[in-house]
């Protein structure tokens, strides 16, 4: 049982992700999360704003149920399966983060500097959260998929557009991590 409560190594996490993907295809569906953002917009009545969102979102209700499940799964893992919330980071990462203003990196699951209540209630913190969301949502639908649709499914299907998109994910992520984050904090 101890294993369940410890952090799971990559060679457990990766294969289990593929197993989930297998079951989604086995049940006649696909593995792609970001299209749910479009379904939620359609559900919220965005069809009145733009014809694209006038589609019948109910046909994607299986995928909406999937993300409802992920919310429950996050709750279960947090409440019952993770007694120690610390992340065992590379010491170099901890010291790099200290240099740009992130204290005690890895002591908790998420950095207070981005997700804490103080950040949420500050103008800078709130703007960062909204902008990050916009970039992820806009970019995922522009590229035609996110980590699940492109990086896992698309690469598994040996698709060139997915390889290009994943290269893009890294160009953006590297620019943010190495160049922009140090300026923000």
């Amino acid at each position, binding site marked *: 049982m101890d294993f369940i409560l410890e952090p799971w*190594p990559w060679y457990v996490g990766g294969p*289990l992700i593929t197993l989930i993907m297998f*079951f989604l295809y086995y049940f006649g569906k696909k593995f792609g999360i970001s299209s749910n953002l479009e379904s939620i917009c359609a559900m919220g009545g965005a069809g009145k704003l*733009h014809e694209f969102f006038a589609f019948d979102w109910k046909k994607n209700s299986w995928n909406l*149920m999937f*993300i409802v499940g992920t919310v429950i799964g996050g709750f279960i893992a947090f409440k019952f399966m993770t007694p120690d919330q610390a992340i065992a980071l590379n010491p170099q990462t901890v010291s790099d983060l200290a240099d740009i203003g992130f204290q005690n990196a890895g002591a908790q699951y998420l950095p207070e500097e981005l997700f804490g209540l103080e950040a949420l209630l500050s103008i800078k913190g709130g703007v960062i959260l909204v902008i990050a969301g916009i970039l992820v949502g806009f970019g*995922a639908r522009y590229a035609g998929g*996110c980590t699940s649709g492109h990086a*896992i499914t698309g690469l598994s299907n040996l698709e060139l557009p997915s390889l290009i998109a994943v290269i893009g994910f890294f160009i*953006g992520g590297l620019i943010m991590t190495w160049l922009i984050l140090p300026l923000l904090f």
Partner: protein
Amino acid sequence: MKNIRFIILGILFGIILSKAEVISWYRIYEMFKFQSFHMYGIIGSAVILGVILFSFFKKGVIKNYLGEKIIIEPKKKGFYRAIIGGTIFGLGWGLIGACPGPMFILLGRGVLSISIVIFGGLLGVLFYHAIKHKLPH
């Protein structure tokens, strides 16, 4: 309630990503700093097994629950959409350390701030469809 199976798969997915620390901002930062193998191991092993799995789908060795051949829908073609859209996505991923799946899992952890990120994500999707006819694809 045919969709109950997808709720269960979602619950498992949420637990797996939580326990493998994929939804921790720190792990994404560490990945983009090339300071840990963890995330590369996760994505890499998922993809290698995925390639093998999909080859069984294509050969018809594994069929779906109705006994039909499993068809994988190809991705939309277009260099610009993939590279520009991908880069924009990467900027957001690097900033907030969560892609769409982890956003919802973090919501389940009770991370209040992530609801603002999800709201931003919905805005981004609306914004994309509002201006997509002007973008190169």
